[in-house]
């Protein structure tokens, strides 16, 4: 077993963008994980903010559950703005 905890790392590359998963680091505590992530994933100015989460704390969908979880939203086109046709006279909405 690894001595240190595995942390997943999320980096926000620019202000206004979401944090994006970039990989993982090992660290004894969260503070060390942030610093290790900083040294590893932002050496080339890639980030303005970092999140770390213990990998064991993440609950993920199994990709084999893809159909029941994600397919139902495929036919709900009314959730997208392009579903609604408005006459040109209305202008931009």
């Amino acid at each position, binding site marked *: 077993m*690894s*001595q240190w905890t595995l942390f997943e790392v999320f980096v926000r590359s620019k202000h206004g963008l979401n944090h994006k998963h970039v*990989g993982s*680091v090992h660290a*004894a505590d969260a503070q060390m994980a942030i610093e290790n992530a900083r*040294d590893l994933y932002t*050496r080339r100015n890639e980030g303005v903010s970092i999140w770390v989460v213990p990998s064991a704390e993440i609950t993920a969908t*199994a*990709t*084999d559950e893809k159909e029941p979880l994600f397919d139902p939203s495929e036919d709900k086109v009314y959730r997208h703005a392009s579903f609604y046709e408005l006459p040109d006279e209305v202008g931009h909405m």
Partner: protein
Amino acid sequence: MYAQMVETGVKKVKGLDEMSAEERAFQEKIDAEIKIEPKNWMPDAYRKTLIRQISQHAHSEVVGMLPEGNWVTRAPTFKRKLQLMAKIQDEAGHGLYLYSAMETLGADRDEEIEKLHSGRAKYSSIFNYPTLNWADMGAVGWLVDGAAIVNQVVLQRTSYGPYSRAMIRICKEESFHQRQGYEILLHMMQHGNDAQKEMVQDAINRLWWPALMMFGPSDADSPNSAQSMAWKIKRHTNDELRQRFIDQTVPQLEFLGCTAPDPELKWNEERGHYDFGDIQWQEFYDVIAGHGPCNRERVETRRKAIDDGAWVREAAVAHAKKKKQQAAA
């Protein structure tokens, strides 16, 4: 390559009709260039082979710091010292990206590293050669990283998602390594004195063949290639990649004004490729088996680093525990 002769444990590649439904769905996904992700079903042999391949690749990055570490304390100028330090830092970083990809397969990093230290896991043969003069820092960047890049560029399209993403990141960062190396040599050839030019030729003489060996044995002698290619964790044969590397490297060699230690190296108009002499495969197998010039020192240094650091890692864990208890109290 950084991963050489990766054992698949598969004797014969199965046809689609011989597979179970799960296996077939998996293979069809790969054939359709759909990435396999950590939580997807995958055959056990695929998982194990990938763990072996990625860990071997990661170990190579980490062991690869040592031949450069041999010169980083002796780099001749600020510029060269800073470049080399940044490059070494990247090697450690690339090792970590790869270990991270490997851990998504359920492997434990410390356990895999322990396999390296006990001789049960391999790393690239190239890092078992000594770096004997400053020009080696150039030749390592140009030839060794150059050979690695040829392979890694292709691996960006490998079937396993996390591995592919790690490769994309590594390729992006590594583009400076090869240029850095070549520039060291070019500067010595164009602005250096006779002693420096001799260093360059000496470095090329020593590292040329080991660099060609990095691609692994000829396809005829690579029993695992077929399965790895079917799984798309390997995308071209060893010989194809080696030829590609030679074809792109020889003009650069000529531009340096240096020669390769291979009298048979010459352009073949008909093939549209360079012909080259026979590789001494016995040397390669010896190095892989642990009998290279620096195998002992490399593994010993890595083992000592991790052993000597045990108290540091333990203390950090103990401290984190205390902090947690204090916070809870």
